[in-house]
Every structure is written in C-alpha cells, then in structure tokens.
C-alpha cells in the first residue's frame, strides 16, 4: 500500500468514526439519549441471540442427523463390505478343500456374501461424496468385486469339469481378495471411522454453543442492568415489560441449556455405548473371519505351516484383546453376555484349530481337512461369529436410539429460539418506549 493512499484514506475514516463516536458519546450525556442506547443494546443483543440460537440448533440438528443417517451407517457398511469379502474368500477356499463338487451350503454362503458385499457397496456409494478417498476406494472395490466374481466363476466351471486349473483360478481370486479387495475395504473402514469422529464434532457444534452461552449471559446481564438503571432513575421499582423480557430470556436459556445438555449426554452415550463398541466388535468379527481364512488357505496351499499360520497366531492375540476390551466396556446386559459367550467359543475354536494343525503337521492331511471343515468346528466358529453379530446388532440399536434422542428438541429450538428472542425485543421496546415518551 502506498503512502498516498494512506494519506487519503486516513482522514475520511477518522472523520466517520469520530462522527459516530461523537454522536453516541453525546447521547450518553442526556437521559433520553441513555435510554435510547440501552434500547438499542437490548434489541440488538436479543436479535443476535435469536439468530445464534437458531443457527446453533440447526447446526447441531444437521450434525446429529448426518452422524446418525450417514457417518455411522457408512461405518457399518464398510465393515459389512470387509467381512463379506473376507467370508467369501474363506468360503471359496473351504469349498475347494472339500474336494469334488463344492458343497451346496458353501456355495449358497459364498453367493450370500457376495450379495451382501455388493448391496453394502451400493449404499455406501450413496453416503459418500463423489470425490475423495472413500469414493475412490468404493470405485475400485466395485470394479474388483466384478473381477473377483469372474475368477471364482471360472474356478467353479473348471472344477466341475475336473480340471486342476480350477485351483489356480481360485488362488488368483484369493490373491485378488487378500491383496486388493480387503485392503481397500479396510481403507474405506478407516475413512468411515474418521467421518464418525468428525460427525460427533459437527453434532456437538461446540463453537456455536459457546457463542450462544456468551450471548445469553450478555443479554441477561444487559436486561438486569437496564432494570437497575431504570429503578434508580425513575420512581418505579419494576418495569413490568422488562421483567417479562427477563423471564422469557430465562425460559430461552433453560430451553437452550436443556436441549443442548440432553443432546450432548445422548451423543456421549451414543459414542461410548454405541459407536465405540460397534467399532470394536466390527474389528473383532473381521479378525475372527481372518483366522478362519488363514486356516483354510493354509490347508489349501498344502505346504505346512507358513506365513498364514503366523498371521493366524497374531490375529488370535489381537482378537483376544478386542474381545477383552469389548467385555470391559460392556460388562453387563445382553451385549456383555454375548461377548462373554464369544470369548468361550473363540477359545474352543482356537483349540480345534490347534488340533487341525497337529493333524496336518503329523501328516494326516485328510484328517486335518475333515476336522477343519467338519460340522463341529464349523458350528463352533459360526457360534463365535453369531455371538459377535448379536452383540453388534444390540449396540447398533443402542446407537440409533441415542442418536434419535440426541436429535430430539433441536428442531423446535430452531423455531422457538428466534421466536422467544423476538418477544424479548418486543418487550424491551415496550418497556423502554414508555420511559422515552416521558421526555417528549
């Protein structure tokens, strides 16, 4: 900026500012002037409070709505995509292990998995903005799921004709699932988790709420000081319209406080009793499916214990930790019971798996396969995932309930807040106009 501009601009600004300040300053010297100032302050504070109340309620309502109807469902869908793909991979490997024509129940399970994954992909796509890492992951997943299904279909067609190339198609499909599909589903899950965290921030709208609290305190303070001033300068102790305005402001403050405090309480319940356990249990289900997949693929590779068995051990340790955490935050109730049952069944499954490894290492490959995909082990494992599922469903319901409660009252507040503020304005105007009239 040049000095010339400064020279030209400075006097003008000083002039206007000086003018306004002077006029306001002069108002303070006369009684009607002071009344006019008080009126202006009360009216503008009340209008501002009304506006901010409306905005706060609207922001909190849309944040809560977004969290409940978009971010959290997206997280659940991401988990569904991941676990359905992992289960499809495991099921395909087990069908292969069975030898001969793949057993019908396994084929049905594989098809149900794929259907679940594609349905979740479609609705996850609806919940993600068109650009960004989540959208990229969904696009790649959609393309790869089609490729994956094609490879498995080729594997089946070849298997039906008794051609060993079917096994190679299956291992290509499995490699695609493990190296591309599942990591992308994990990336989506990660992004969804971030969105849920952001969603809680948006739902709380803390900056708006803080501003609103300051404005409410300022409005109340201004009303009280105006009444003090009036009772000192006039003979009337109470200015009834202003008393009414104060009462309405208190009602507004109580309504705002009540709704926002209740909303926060429900949000934090939704987080600790809903989102967190859901995230933990979702991760637990993925870990359980990973164990089963490692087991089946180790047997299918027929190479003895390798990297996959090591992964099994690591996953077991992780799953134990996850279930322990889940048990800690859900000590009682239906979900807690389901988690405890899952812990027992996981132990039973791991000991069955150890037996499978012992048989395979002891050269009884057929025995190992029979035990691994046999009814007993399958039942134990399905029991484990069913327990995790029912705890997960229970926590999802808790989340929906809490989010529903958190959103309650925010809508009415959006209308009621500005309305009450307008009433405060009107009352302030009425209260002070009577006094101003006296100076005419």
């Amino acid at each position: 900026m040049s000095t010339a501009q400064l020279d030209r601009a400075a006097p003008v600004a000083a002039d206007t500012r000086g003018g306004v300040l002077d006029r306001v300053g002069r108002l303070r010297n006369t009684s009607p002037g002071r009344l006019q100032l008080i009126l202006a302050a009360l009216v503008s504070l009340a209008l501002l409070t009304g506006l901010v109340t409306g905005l706060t309620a609207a922001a909190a309502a849309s944040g809560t709505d977004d969290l409940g109807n978009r971010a959290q469902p997206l997280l659940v869908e991401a988990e569904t995509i991941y676990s359905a793909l992992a289960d499809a991979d495991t099921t395909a490997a087990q069908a292969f292990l069975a030898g001969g024509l793949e057993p019908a129940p396994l084929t049905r399970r594989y098809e149900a998995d794929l259907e679940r994954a594609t349905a979740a992909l479609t609705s996850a796509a609806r919940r993600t903005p068109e650009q960004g890492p989540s959208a990229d992951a969904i696009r790649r997943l959609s393309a790869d799921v089609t490729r994956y299904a094609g490879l498995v279909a080729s594997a089946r067609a070849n298997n039906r004709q008794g051609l060993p190339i079917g096994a190679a198609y299956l291992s290509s499909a499995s490699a695609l699932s493990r190296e591309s599909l599942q990591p992308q589903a994990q990336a989506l899950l990660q992004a969804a988790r971030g969105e849920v965290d952001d969603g809680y921030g948006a739902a709380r709208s803390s900056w708006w709420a803080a501003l609103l609290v300051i404005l409410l305190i300022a409005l109340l303070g201004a009303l009280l000081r105006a009444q003090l001033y009036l009772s000192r300068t006039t003979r009337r102790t109470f200015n009834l319209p202003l008393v009414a305005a104060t009462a309405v402001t208190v009602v507004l403050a109580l309504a705002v406080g009540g709704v926002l405090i209740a909303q926060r309480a429900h949000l934090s319940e939704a987080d600790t009793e809903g989102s967190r356990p859901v995230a933990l249990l979702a991760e637990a289900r993925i870990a359980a499916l990973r164990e089963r997949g490692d087991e089946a693929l180790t047997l299918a590779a027929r190479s003895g214990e390798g990297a996959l068995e090591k992964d099994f051990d690591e996953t077991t340790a992780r799953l134990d930790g996850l279930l322990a955490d889940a048990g800690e935050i859900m000590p009682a109730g239906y979900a807690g019971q389901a988690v405890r049952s899952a812990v027992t069944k996981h132990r039973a499954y791991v000991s069955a798996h150890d037996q499978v490894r012992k048989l395979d290492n002891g050269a009884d490959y057929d025995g190992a396969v029979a035990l691994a995909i046999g009814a007993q082990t399958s039942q134990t494992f399905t029991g484990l995932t069913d327990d995790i599922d029912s705890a997960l469903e229970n926590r999802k319901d808790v989340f929906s309930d809490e989010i529903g409660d958190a959103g309650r009252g925010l809508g009415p507040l959006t209308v009621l807040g500005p309305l009450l503020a307008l009433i405060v304005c009107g009352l302030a105007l009425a209260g002070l106009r009577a006094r101003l009239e006296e100076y005419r």
Partner: protein
Amino acid sequence: MRTRAALVAAAVTVLAAAGCSGDSSPLPGRPTASAGASTGAPAAPADDSCRPRASLRPAGALPAPGRMPAGSYMAEIQKRGRLVLGTSQDTLLFSSRNPFTGKVEGFDVDMGRQVAQAIFGDPDKIQIKVIGYDKRVSSVVDGSVDIVADTMTANCARWKDVNFSSIYYDAGQKVLVSKDSKATGIDDLGGRKVCAAKGSTSYDNIAKVASRPIPVDRPGFGDCLVAFQQNEVDAISTDDTILVGLAAQDPYAKVVGPRFTDEPYGMAMPKEHEDFTRFVNAVLARNRANGTWKSTYERWLGDFGAAPPPPAAEYRD
C-alpha cells in the same frame, strides 16, 4: 573389532554362497541375484561340466522294506513313519490335485510313492508337501522335505546344493500358444510375453532366447495358464510334459516348436545323506528293470504314445 571382522567374514561367505548357487531357487538367507543376472544374457550352452545326469551308484542290493539299515537316513525316515515328498499340486499328469478326490497324484508323485514302498512296504506312507518352484532347492537344504520330485531339472547349479537321483524322465522346453497363433516355436515370440513359473529353469531359459521374448513369472504353471486365458500373456514356455498337461485343460491352446532345451528330471535329496541318494537310485534301477517305470509312464502319459525306454542311469563313481 572382532565382531566387525566376523561380520565381514559372514558377508563374504554369503556372497560366495550366492555365487556358487547359480540357481533360481534362492536358499534361505541368500540374496536372489541369479534371476536378475540371467535376464537378457545371451544364449549360453548349458553348463555340463559336472555331468548333471550322473548320480551316485547304488550300494549293493536293496534292503527289505521295513528293515532299513541302522544309522542310515532311510532308518530315520522309517522311524518317523512317513516319507515327506515336496512337489506341486498344479502340474497335470506329474503332480496335480485331483479335483474329484482332493488327492495329489501324477507321475512325480508315483516316483515318490515307489520310494515309500521300498522303505515301508506301503506307498501310502507319504506326506505330500506342496512347495513353490522357487523353493525346490531350499526345501531340501533346510530339511523341510526328504525328497523333491517336481519336474525338476538336474543341472550343475543345483548339484552344488543338492544331490539328484539318476534321471527318471527326459523332457525339453517347448511353447504353448493359442490355437490360431502362427508361431511355430519360441523364436517367433520375440517381444511377446511368455510365462513360466517363478524359480524354474524354464523362466531363465526364456530370457536366453535370441529373439528376446519377455519373460513373465507366476507362482506356478497353473497360474500361467490362468494368465494365458485372461490374455495377460501370449504364451507359456516350459517342459513339453507340463505343457501337454496344460493344453489338455484348454482346447484353444496348442503346444508348438522343437525342444529347444534338454531337461533331464531327477529327484532332489539332501547332500549330506549320500546313502539315501544311493538307495533311491537302487529303487529306480530296479523299477526300470522290472517294468514299474513303464507301467507308471503308461498310467500317466500313455495317451501321448507308447512308453519310450526309460532314461539310462549314469553314475559318477
């Protein structure tokens, strides 16, 4: 200072080891320099300086099954109760998983079963361990299998790390192309993508061809056929025996060309158990003579013509 000297010594040992093991199957802990080094090298005649076809002479008559001489490696296997055979499960006719039964079977598996028969009197006392083509040498060296029968070429580079049995099958490398291809051999495939299993001699050989095809590796030859059917590669090149098995699974593929390499198959065994190599050679010698080899050939490869005479055994001592 002493630790540093030890480190240098260790590094030198590792380098020396890598140098002498000019094989595509890397040994545990050794750098894999050979695959990269061989790419683009001019076609060199196979190194026959060690006489790769020549194995160790059998020591006298075979002991009776179940009565292995004390202290021998065979006695160790007998005590364990099973022979651990390293092989693949996707090489149709040699060792592949029968989709109907889930069992791994083929010419190579039968070779292993005949050894189990000689040790235990029961060919079923065998544990099949599927190993990658690039693990055929290292699995023998680290003791995770007793013996490898997996369309494995006996060559000088591998002889440095393992012992081979006498040759039980003579193969040679050809190419598999699509039915409508005009290529008549590997020489017509310059600049085209040609697939082979990772760690196989076939893979190294592709890069040595003068017309310069582009070698592409996959974990196994079944995976190569998948790549071929998905149009990811133009051809597959490996031993004619394996290619016949692949072509049998795809009516739109054909095997063409003359054999451009010689691939004598031997079973690989640990270097430190010479008694075992001699024993296996005795089993092979007996089976060549009594017609077992011929019936095994006819069982798996009979569709491609009458059985040729079995490869003659050569010994180095």
